[in-house]
């Protein structure tokens, strides 16, 4: 190609894209950007890349979803770019409640929860409280009694940082139990699991999916699950509610879009996600990996997010975590 013809081709290409307003009947007619607010290889990233392949299948022939990682600031950078994205259905992203709600409640973000249009929730992974197998504590009550005897003497390791969903769960727990625990922030799941297995901390919080395997092996004991009902993956583990403390906290992963995207586009995405989650091949992989899938359609997902925000506001008022 001669230089001139390259310029001409470029010019035409630019004109074409500028002129072609998105015809919604053909949605999607160009690649959809799926923003992940965490680095490649993380749990959310792998979930996104997996579901993206199956969503493409059900969005129609030729549909393409590109996963774009925008990690940093505990997810805030990526979520900001979802909130500020164009509301045409070509920018969607994964949001992780209640971490995202917590950031908004702290009041430093450039976005509000109302800047997002919830599309569908995919995963709900309840929090758990675990102790080493030879621990003197065998129930929540034991732990609370010990903490009441010497306030702050019971250390609980958490995989998150200050303000993470686990930390907030702990704050709620100690408020309801009227005592005080000392949180130790390990900043990652691997180190906290190692610490509780090695008996370096007397107790720890993490998500159910992260505790499942070692709990089944019996090397740690799950003394409380932070969900409304017992988990089918670990039916022997009691819930916090059964112990008399109404703590329901979990990490969720769902897909949202910038607010104002056309209703028919939401419907299309919603349907594709629902179908993808029912795809036998995907379902098989998810079951094997014991991913706690929980599909919520757009309206239910919105209710769920609203509830998380209200709860967090109440906690923030009583015990600000930062």
């Amino acid at each position, binding site marked *: 190609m001669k230089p001139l013809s390259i310029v001409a081709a470029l010019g035409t290409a630019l004109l074409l894209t500028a002129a072609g307003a998105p015809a919604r009947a053909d949605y999607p007619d160009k690649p959809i950007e799926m923003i992940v607010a965490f680095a490649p290889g993380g749990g959310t990233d792998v979930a996104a890349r997996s579901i993206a392949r199956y969503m493409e299948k059900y969005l129609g022939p030729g549909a393409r979803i590109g996963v774009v990682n925008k990690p940093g600031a505990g997810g805030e*950078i990526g979520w900001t770019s979802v909130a500020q994205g164009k509301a045409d259905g070509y920018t969607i992203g994964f949001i992780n409640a209640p971490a995202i709600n917590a950031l908004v409640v702290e009041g430093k973000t450039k976005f509000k929860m109302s800047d997002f249009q919830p599309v569908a929730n995919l995963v709900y992974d309840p929090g758990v409280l675990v102790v080493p197998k030879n621990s003197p504590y065998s129930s929540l009550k034991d732990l609370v009694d010990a903490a009441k005897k010497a306030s702050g003497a019971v250390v609980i390791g958490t995989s998150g940082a200050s303000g993470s969903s686990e930390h907030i769960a702990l704050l709620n727990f100690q408020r309801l139990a009227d005592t005080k625990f000392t949180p130790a922030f390990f900043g990652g799941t691997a180190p906290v699991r190692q610490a509780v297995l090695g008996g370096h901390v007397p107790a720890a919080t993490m998500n159910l999916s992260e505790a499942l395997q070692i709990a089944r092996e019996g090397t740690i004991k799950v003394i409380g699950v932070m969900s409304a009902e017992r988990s089918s993956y670990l039916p022997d583990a009691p819930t916090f509610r059964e112990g008399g403390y109404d703590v329901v906290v979990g990490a969720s992963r769902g897909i949202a879009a910038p607010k104002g995207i056309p209703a028919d586009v939401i419907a299309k995405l919603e349907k594709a996600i629902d179908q993808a989650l029912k795809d036998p091949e995907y379902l098989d992989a998810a079951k094997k990996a014991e991913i706690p899938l929980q599909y919520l359609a757009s309206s239910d997902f919105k209710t769920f997010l609203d509830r998380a925000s209200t709860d967090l506001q109440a906690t923030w008022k009583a015990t600000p975590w930062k």
Partner: protein
Amino acid sequence: MIDALLHALPLVFAPMNILAMFIGLIAGLIVGCLPGLTVVTGLAVLIPLTFGLDPMFALGMMAGMYNGGSYGGAIPAILMRVPGTPASVATVLDGYKMTQKGQAAYALQVALLSGVIGSVLSSISLILLSPPLVSFSLMFGPIEYFWLGILGLATVSSLLGDDLPKGLIACGIGLLIGAVGQDISNGTERFTFGQLDLLDGFSAIVLLTGLFAVPPVLQIIEEAVKTGMSGDKLKLHRQGSALSQWRFFTPVWIRSSIIGIIIGILPGAGGSMSSFLAYNEAKRVARHPETFGHGNPEGVAASECGNGADNAASLIPALALGIPGSGVAAVILGGLLVHGLRPGPQLFREHPDIVYGFMLQFLVTSFLLAIVGGLAATRIFGQVLRLPRIVLAPVILLFVTVGVYSVNNSLFDLWVLLGVGLIGYVLERLDYPSAPIVLGLLLGPMIESQLRLALTISGGKTTALLSTPIAVTLALLSAAILLAPAWRMWRERGKTPVIEGAESR
């Protein structure tokens, strides 16, 4: 176990699975040698594609990619002073100097062979020693990690260079940069100046790339050499063979492999630490430590061997307990899960053929790496050096730019790269050593956070820091390493005459 290994053999050597290992190796070499792309990125893209495939095929690709990627990082480190992965930074120190001395091919061969030896020993320890190593790794809590960090920092005394205060400053710069970002235990934002991009601190890969890759670009421009390296200098047979010098390298290999394996099985110690600590140790015990950093092949051998030994070892706690020993192991763990392979002791009972097959794949890919890497690295990558040097400057810059951008998808990081690069250039011209910066950067955050965790758990009692045998051992070792040079100096005081005016040598 022998039974399981024998059963796994036909699986491992099935033609399709050998193909998988080759694909993984080559993909790993590519992502490894490009700065900003890591094995983690490669695996993240790969895993969803393996959903419907046979587990052994998928695992073969993963094993290949892990081993290929760790050597891939050494290639640009040696040829262009661009650390392809954070773990290859220690390789830069001597590898690039060897290239400048016209020993590029030899340096690549030393790196490859050392990496292979490290991975082989690591794979063997994965197959044979998993249970005892797992219980050893569980003995490490915050107290032990704290002392491990101190031990690492103590070995820095051997890297401080000829000018003590400058070495200390360099270390301090690394420690300070490591302190940038949000304090996870109370949310305090340290030195972020309201910048969202700094909340998680600087990305290590961005800093290290800027520190090591940008200054030589400026130097190439200054020198403006318009010719390339002659093809002759890239031929190996003129430069000696690392294989025939195995006696010379064996002590380095053994020490580095042990260090790599120990760091590998500890989830709280970052992966890139192993190559650095191995390098430190090699320099510390060397008869002529002053030759390190000036093109000593032992430096390359130690770094790459430690790096290779980290790989399979980081899977030991991952397979046995579900606790990944490194970022890559974490992703591999995710990959195992989608194939229904749930880590833990029962994995060895329920799927012994697959587990031992996977371990064997690690071993096999280590050997395959010797072939693929040996053929590809010098014959293909090395030829880049035949380009006129001045043309290499923009080429390095292009790859570094796109790589750094893609780490966080952020333009901010490009400016960090530029800033750090310029500071790096000044530091270099004023003889501030770069190695202590890296060590400060890697170890500082670990020392601070683990110390605070240890004190939180003990309720503020400092005596708890010396309450376990491992902690005491590590503390004594650190003290010994710190005091050894002082002791030597005191003993040799008066023996060597002090030469005044040595500056004008």
